[in-house]
């Protein structure tokens, strides 16, 4: 599980060319019960940091060093490793301090440094971890905003340039969405609900275009053929997707992932087996170009879900109907493929009916944490995905599952909000819970992402989420993991996605958990090893 965060044993790397200070700081930090590593040269420090990417929690560095400017080191550490860095100097001039802060320093200490200043540096580590979680959400919001304000071409091509540091909620963007939103079912905020099904359509469209950066919102929109959807909706979703993918890539290395990945694998396999999908189209949920992912369920037995409670959990669950379309084709490049594969479901409507939407969600959610998502995509993805999709949801569901939104609400409009999820089936309910959880797919993703990517210190679990959800979520987690929600990975990775969706959309019912909360929950439940 998540390792608890504690100041004791904090791994500190001290960089200072002054040997006297290095000795003093080492002694001081040891007295604080930290684990200290000293370094007399900036380049040695960078080398150490790069060799052991996860070997340190915080870096304390002097500003003036002969071989490298302290600010430069600060930049490198911040960019490559995203570790909190504290600057030190005998010079307390405002301009210098400002420069330090501008370069991303968590703090700027003046020499001579006192013990009491060092005793509290662990707070920076904790704060940063928490910030990361929030950043994801903010990122997406910022991205969405950026997207709407920018050219489509820019959006796709220059995605990476977008500064996703924006954390503010973009109310303008929401307004815009509102204007564009033509879905009558939306209530509070006219936000597009990216249901699983919808996302699947999206992914398929992207795949069709060719999982590369040439897929523009307009093209995707056209291919998706969803009347009420606007280009802006697609654009923002695409941005998130891309971010998600990139985050997934990043997160792959994370420990959390390793655990998750395994689950996925097995789940996928299970899914396959279970669902009887023979499908080749295994749900390419996750990664594969999304194309055929979900076939598995649908193709072979589109309706498994509907009827049998669990007849074929896997197949049914996932997304039988969708399966058709989805081919799991993994597109190696995670970014594009991930998207595609993620949602093979766009076609869902048909088969899905019976399938409990939950499944989808679950897997979706689960997937997120798995860092291996990207890897999934590249290799086994297709099969995995399917499996993932399926297994978890054993829910008998009868289609009553939550899925309404996602997969298959055949009868539902694409914009079905999660709210509509029908939790009638008891099992479905639990699934649903998960679903809810996942519904927030974005949320989940977020959390998943988070969990995957970060080892949040004691994430407060579910404090915010309803207990139910929490519980179900946790259960679902397992579910998802099994199902290899690869597909959802996209979602999961982008917390922002989640945050972007209006709360009411996500949860069919109760409130939407705070993204932070969510992620924390997720952390706790999901991905922690």
């Amino acid at each position, binding site marked *: 599980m998540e390792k608890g965060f504690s100041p004791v044993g904090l791994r500190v790397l001290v960089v200072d060319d*002054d*040997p006297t*200070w290095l*000795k*003093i700081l080492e*002694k001081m930090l040891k007295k604080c019960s930290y684990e200290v590593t000293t370094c007399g040269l900036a380049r040695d420090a960078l080398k150490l940091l790069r060799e052991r990417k996860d070997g340190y929690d915080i870096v304390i560095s002097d500003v*003036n060093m002969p071989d490298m400017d302290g600010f430069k080191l600060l930049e490198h550490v911040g960019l490559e490793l995203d570790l909190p860095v504290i600057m030190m100097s005998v010079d307390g001039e405002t301009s210098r301090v400002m420069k330090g802060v501008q370069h991303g320093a968590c703090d700027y200490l003046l020499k*001579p440094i006192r*013990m009491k200043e060092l005793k509290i540096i662990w707070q920076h580590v904790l704060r940063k971890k928490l910030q990361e979680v929030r950043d994801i959400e903010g990122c997406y919001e910022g991205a969405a905003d950026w997207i709407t304000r920018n050219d489509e071409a820019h959006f796709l091509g220059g995605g990476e340039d977008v500064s996703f540091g924006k954390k503010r909620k973009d109310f303008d963007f929401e307004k815009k969405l509102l204007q564009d939103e033509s879905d009558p079912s939306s209530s509070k905020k006219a936000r597009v609900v990216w249901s699983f099904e919808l996302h699947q359509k999206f992914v398929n469209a992207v795949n069709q275009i060719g999982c590369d950066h040439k897929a523009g919102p307009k093209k995707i929109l056209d291919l998706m053929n969803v009347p009420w959807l606007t280009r802006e909706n697609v654009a923002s979703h695409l941005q998130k997707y891309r971010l998600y993918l990139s985050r997934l890539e990043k997160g792959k290395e994370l420990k959390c992932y390793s655990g998750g990945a395994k689950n996925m694998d097995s789940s996928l396999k299970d899914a396959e087996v279970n669902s009887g999908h023979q499908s080749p189209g295994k749900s390419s949920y996750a990664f594969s170009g999304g194309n055929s992912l979900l076939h598995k369920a649908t193709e072979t037995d589109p309706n498994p879900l509907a009827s049998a409670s669990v007849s074929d959990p896997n197949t049914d669950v996932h997304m039988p109907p969708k399966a058709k379309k989805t081919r799991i084709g993994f597109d190696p490049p995670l970014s594009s493929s991930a998207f595609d594969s993620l949602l093979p479901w766009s076609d869902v409507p048909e088969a899905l009916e019976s399938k409990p939407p939950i499944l989808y969600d679950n897997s979706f959610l689960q997937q997120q944490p798995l860092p291996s998502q990207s890897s999934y995509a590249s290799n086994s993805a297709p099969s995995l995905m399917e499996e993932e999709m399926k297994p978890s949801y054993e829910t008998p569901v009868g289609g009553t599952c939550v899925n309404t939104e996602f997969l298959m609400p055949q009868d539902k409009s694409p914009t079905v909000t999660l709210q509509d999820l029908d939790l009638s089936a008891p099992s479905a309910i639990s699934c649903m819970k998960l679903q809810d959880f996942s519904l927030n797919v974005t949320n989940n993703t977020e959390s998943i992402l988070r969990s995957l990517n970060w080892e949040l210190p004691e994430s407060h679990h579910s404090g915010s989420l309803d207990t139910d959800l929490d519980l179900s979520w946790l259960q679902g987690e397992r579910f998802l993991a099994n199902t290899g929600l690869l597909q959802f990975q996209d979602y999961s990775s982008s917390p922002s996605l989640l945050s972007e969706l209006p709360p009411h959309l996500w949860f069919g019912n109760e409130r939407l958990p705070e993204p932070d909360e969510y992620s924390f929950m997720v952390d706790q439940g999901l991905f922690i090893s």
Partner: protein
Amino acid sequence: MQRQVALIKQSLFDQGYLDEQFMELEELQDDVNPNFVEEVSALYFKDSARLINNIDQALERGSFDFNRLDSYMHQFKGSSTSIGASKVKTECTMFREYCRAGNAEGCLRTFQQLKKEHATLRKKLEHYFQLARQAGPKETARRPK
């Protein structure tokens, strides 16, 4: 003897040779590092001698690259704060101001003063540590009143 040692230390503080940083170092001294303060002090003098040498050479060249001199002094000042070498630190600050003002004469004068203070402190501390060792191991650090 221990009282004598304490008195010497007190006078160093009173005369402004040392500041609170020295006390902080004494508080860091423990069973793991029983001679911590002396070790740090030795390290400082060794390193600062090197820095002084650098500055000496730079000044002797006569080219007066103030930026470079300022940079050296910045280093030296930082080092001096490590043991609380108060008077030395004051000279460092003055030197840097002269550098910024582009005052070569001022730099030279200040540097001479700095070297003097540095040498004085070194002698006093060496004497102090010697006595402290003689007075008995584990002399606990006490903050002068």
